[in-house]
């Protein structure tokens, strides 16, 4: 059974206007997204800025209120679950994008990491300290650093503190929102390796949100490409990278810089071609509002947003 199931998720933000501040319209940040993730897998959500990928992640964990649709975790409906459902909150955790703003600068590492523990587990001071030290060791930081403040750490170390906080309650699902985009390549490698290690150790499931297709390819089993709040394509890594069907996916894949300088001319030509195709056939792939169509299956695993054929 899938650990996380999302059905027709919609997150709309109201646009208010007039002196009565009435809602005149909605921004459809997420407009009908469905997916499911099996336990222990990594599901990648890819898109450009403004595509709604972060909003989807935040809605799943309950940081955005859901307009309509259903989110179930382990078979339980957790749509718009409130504080009273705190037992479920334990099992779903989040790693935030920016390691500089997601840690309270006035709190010590001990307090940052033990906050989830204090909320859910009744531990004595010494037990708590021991647990935090264990967690720090898991993420490769020295246990002595519990009394330090966030500013005393580098970006990569801060991100690992964020991860330690996320895994403190042994969650089943982690939503990682661009976990490495603020980091240098070498530090990026460190965090990604580490995320893979703890995934194996704790049998974690990831919802991995990123705009970097190279990293998504490295980390994920299945991915979905989002555009303006809707899916344009969903499939396994092989489906998407070797057999992209939607023009938007093709454009995205062709835009990744190739690490081999010998392919430069070829890449440039492909990009120009795809760009032309994108300009010419935009109307075949998007509806009159410039949004993606509903998904049609291409194979068992591969779905593409195409207009229904008459």
């Amino acid at each position, binding site marked *: 059974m899938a650990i996380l199931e999302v059905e027709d998720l919609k997150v709309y933000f109201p646009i208010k206007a007039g002196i009565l501040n009435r809602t005149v319209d909605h921004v459809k940040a997420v407009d009908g997204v469905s997916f499911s993730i099996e336990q222990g897998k990594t599901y990648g959500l890819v898109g*450009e*800025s403004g595509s709604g990928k972060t909003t989807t992640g935040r809605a799943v964990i309950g940081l955005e209120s859901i307009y309509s649709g259903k989110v179930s975790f382990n078979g339980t409906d957790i749509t718009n679950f409130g504080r009273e459902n705190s037992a479920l909150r334990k099992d779903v955790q989040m790693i935030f994008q920016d390691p500089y703003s997601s840690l309270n600068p006035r709190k010590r590492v001990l307090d940052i990491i033990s906050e989830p523990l204090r909320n859910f587990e009744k531990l004595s001071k010494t037990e708590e300290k021991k647990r935090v030290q264990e967690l720090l060791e898991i993420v490769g930081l020295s246990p002595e650093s519990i009394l330090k403040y966030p500013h005393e750490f*580098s970006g*990569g170390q801060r991100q690992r503190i964020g991860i330690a906080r996320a895994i403190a309650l042994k969650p089943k699902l982690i939503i990682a929102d661009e976990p490495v985009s603020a980091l*240098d*390549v*070498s530090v*990026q*490698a*460190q965090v*990604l*390796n580490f995320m893979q290690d703890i995934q194996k150790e704790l049998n974690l499931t990831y919802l991995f949100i990123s*705009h*970097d*297709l*190279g*990293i998504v*390819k*490295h980390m994920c089993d299945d991915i979905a490409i989002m555009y303006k709040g809707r899916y344009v394509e969903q499939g396994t890594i092989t489906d998407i990278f070797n057999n992209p069907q939607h023009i938007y996916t093709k*454009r*995205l894949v*062709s*835009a*990744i*810089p*190739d*690490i*081999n*300088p*010998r392919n*430069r001319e070829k*890449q*440039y030509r492909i*990009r120009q071609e795809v760009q032309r195709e994108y300009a010419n056939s935009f109307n075949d792939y998007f509806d009159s509002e410039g949004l993606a169509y509903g998904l049609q299956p291409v194979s068992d695993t591969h779905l593409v947003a195409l207009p229904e054929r008459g």
Partner: protein
Amino acid sequence: MSNKLLEINNLRTSFRIGDKYYAAVDDVSLTVNKNEVLGIVGESGSGKSALAFSIMGLHTKARVEGNIFYKDQDIANIAPAKLNKLRGDDIAMIFQDPLTALNPLMKIGDQIAETLILHKPEMSQKQRKDRVIELINLVRIPRAEYVYEQFPHELSGGMRQRIVIAIAIANQPDLLIADEPTTALDVTIQAQVLDLIRELKDDLNSGVILITHDLGVVAEMADRVAVMYAGQIVEIADVHTLFENPLHPYTRSLLNSVPAEGQDKLHVIQGVVPSLQKLPRNGCRFAARIPWVDESAHEENPELHEVEPGHFVRCTCYSHFYFPDESKEAQVHGNS
């Protein structure tokens, strides 16, 4: 060689911390030729942006030593008035963050026109406006007349970055310095902006210094690449050599830490980039990050060695370097 556009000799840029100066760019020498893209790669804190700012003379409080020859003129030791004549005209810069590089209270058209007013005062108002519209079209922004009247906040990130490029190329510079021009952009926009820079370079026959931390961008764009670590160039070579036969341990580690086809585990560089004050000023600066390599492998005062024509590597440790998960015998490559 008349092809040479920029020649930097032993540049040292130091910042004052407390009452001491610390070099962020330490003894850097390089050249840029006409119609050439020189890529400068390095992580944050490697001094690549400090180098760019030194060339442009934008450091007001730093101590800049050494020579920067732009077409036989030493712009590191030049009167500010003379430098102002060159900046924005012969030498231009594309800044990293388009949101902070543009004035939020000024119309797009006026911002582009500013550099024309400064460097081409003989232009009439009509000519100037035509040129600005032409520039907006050149960077492929549709409805140029409309955008002319807009303010930066009305444009998307990609459009803003293109405006920054339009300002930089307004006077057809011979040397273009692009400091992480696409870091803030989405991949598809990045591809467009990079293609644009390349086409402009071909049209104007100018030299480009492209500063980035993204190895993919370098592989796509550069003709030659300099890798910087802790203020120094550790390896410099043409782009094919660098990607096919990287020698310096830092270059190799960096290439190994990027996700690639069929790679199971990413390489992690141990430790962190030392801060300016704690940076060892003697010996190989990368030694602390590769502790498994024997100390005797490093030089006392590492210098750039020309291992093959045009391919320079700092320190001798490259010939003894191996990744910890490789066996020691695997290090045959290197001195060959």
